[in-house]
């Protein structure tokens, strides 16, 4: 690091104050711009869902509706969104549970044991992140078809493991590596089996890592579009993202209804996200750093 000596004339107090004020103004302006950029679409989505139709389909935007129309929401629900919500919940829950089981065991094993080809396994997990879903899609489609799983949400749950597992193994391995081994050894001296030591002593400690993985898996499964689009045909098994896209195509000029459906899809995720984002970033950073 080079130490730079000042080559500029000394600042007068007044000039320094002015400089600070300009910087402050600029900073606040930038903050405003970034804030608006971030939040405006969400605001616009919710607003459009409750505006009267005449205030939506107009060249001059209406920033605050003259009256609030909430009847689009029951309309959307009746159009099937209760079922779609249920489907998304089931798939997300199934994926998260299965994924956690697989990833916890594997992450622990990779962190603690000298498995043959351990280094290559880790590298393999990293490379799977390279795979675009579309590369897996066609054969998975064929396999699911032959197994008769295309008519069932189970097919989707299993397919989702393809992209959930690698990253969650990565995160969990990172967490397990950060836990010192003496606790397990102590438990083993006390008579636990290795597995027992893992189950009773280590897992509870890896809570944050497991939480991070669970959150990641849940959000990924909840938002997944391409596989759900390809694997599910029957309306009653649709998940929210595909149902929303279909709805938008169906009601293509009823922007209020489309925004209402979008809001119903988005708001739960946003709220959930606001509560858990710290876990998620810590988890991912930890996983990345411990590599």
């Amino acid at each position: 690091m080079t130490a730079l000596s000042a080559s500029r004339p000394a600042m007068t107090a007044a000039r320094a104050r002015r400089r600070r004020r300009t910087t402050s103004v600029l900073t606040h302006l930038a903050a405003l711009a970034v804030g608006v950029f971030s939040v405006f679409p969400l605001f616009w989505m919710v607003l459009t869902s409750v505006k009267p139709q005449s205030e939506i389909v107009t060249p001059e935007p209406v920033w605050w509706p003259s009256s609030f129309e909430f009847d689009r929401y029951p309309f959307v629900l009746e159009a099937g969104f209760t079922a779609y919500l249920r489907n998304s919940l089931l798939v997300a829950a199934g994926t998260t549970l299965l994924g956690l089981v697989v990833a916890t065991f594997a992450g622990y094993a990779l962190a603690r044991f000298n498995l043959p080809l351990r280094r290559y396994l880790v590298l393999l997990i990293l490379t799977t992140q390279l795979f675009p879903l579309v590369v897996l899609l066609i054969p998975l489609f064929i396999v699911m078809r032959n197994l008769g799983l295309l008519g069932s949400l189970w097919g989707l749950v299993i397919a989702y493991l393809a992209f959930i597992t690698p990253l969650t193994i990565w995160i969990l391995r990172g967490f397990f590596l950060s836990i010192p081994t003496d606790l397990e050894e102590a438990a083993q001296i006390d008579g636990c089996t290795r597995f027992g030591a893992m189950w009773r002593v280590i897992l509870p400690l890896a809570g944050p890592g497991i939480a991070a993985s669970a959150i990641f898996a849940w959000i990924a499964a909840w938002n997944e579009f391409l596989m759900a689009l390809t694997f599910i045909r029957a309306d009653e098994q649709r998940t929210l993202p595909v149902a929303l896209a279909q709805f938008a195509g169906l009601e293509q000029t009823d922007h209020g209804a489309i925004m209402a459906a979008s809001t119903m899809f988005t708001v739960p995720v946003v709220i959930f996200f606001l509560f858990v984002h710290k876990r998620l970033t810590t988890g991912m950073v930890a996983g990345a750093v411990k590599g």
Partner: protein
Amino acid sequence: MSLAIRKTLSLLGGGAALALVLTACGGDDNDDGDATSPDETTPPQEEEQQAELSGELTVWIMEPGNPDVQATIDGFGAAFEQMHEGVTINIDYVPWANAHDQFTTGIAGGQVPDLAEMGNTWTPEFAEIGAFAPVQPPAGVEFVEGLAQSATLDGTTYGYPWYAGARALIYRTDIFEEAGVDVPTTWDELLEVGDTIAAETDVAPIRPAGGYQHMFQPLIWNAGGDIATQDGDSWTPGFDTEAGHEALSFFETLWKKGWSPEGAVQWNSVDVRDDFANEGAAMMIGGGWDLRAILGANPELEGRVGTALMPAGPAGNQDVFAGGSNLVVFQESQQQELAMAFAEFMIEPENAKEFADQIGFLPGTVGGVEETVGGDELFGVFGDQFVNHSRAYPVAGWWGKVEGNATIPTELQRLMLGEVTVEEAAANIDAGIADAIG
């Protein structure tokens, strides 16, 4: 380690419960109902001694764009259920825009309904690959030829003609009065009338749209050409001809008038219809179902709209596309007999007529169509157009591919965006069609 074992078991139990829930929610129905075909001349209302039909039927119907129509179809389902205890009819509505994909992927994945509405231009394509079960439409009924043709392959019938429809000119009588113009009957008159309306009123004359293939494709017939000509078993694409160029030129001229907003390059028939319902245009090409939807969406237009036959092209003909749908039973269905029973129920004369009247389609039978022609002043025009001035697109498997691939609208859009000339567009369209023919 009993605690660990207990925990594991409870996890497994939870997993099993989850599995139960998932399969319950996602499973397939495999009940077999045993049935004999209902006698189709029996009036629907008083059939108590129908043979035993039971089971669950999954039906895919095209989104009609009109909640009343949906209610009518749901009503058929309910009526059929009432007649047959133990039968449940589940109807899913599919938007036309996605329907071809839905069917293609569904057939590929073995995830098909039992019964579906199948556009007549797609029926040959899927029949060719063996997706449909052969059916026996009731004897003694004369079906509209275009529909019956589309449902027959090598002498076997694969679908029940359900309804037919043709598009014609829908226009605003009040705007025409305001501008002092008469209904155009030729292409040139259309352009003249358009210019006058544009000058005298603040409503757009007509909106050319890039995604509305049925507005554009018949133009080649009006110009005296054909989309593709058949010679025995082989087909030759026909856009790179004088007639094809004329059709494309005419459309380009309409577009360059600037009567459509720029976004209309991507508009499909629903956008055009909604624009008309919002009083944005003075004319549109549409069918009876469009008109019903428009009047439903904007009742104030009642009495201010009129219908007329399509303006004729340079070749003197004013043919439009003879549209319609068949009801098809899927080969992979486990409920074929039930599906056929329900299909035959829906095409029974009373039901077919009720349905057709409701939405502005024509029933798929010749008798039914003729009843509608000359009937209503407003809607009778569509019957006339259908019977006297309409044609089928090439009845062949490859045409479904062309439609599914949106070959023609894609090229049309490039023309509208100025990326290709008329000649280039024509050549590209022909290349795309030749590709599909294979």
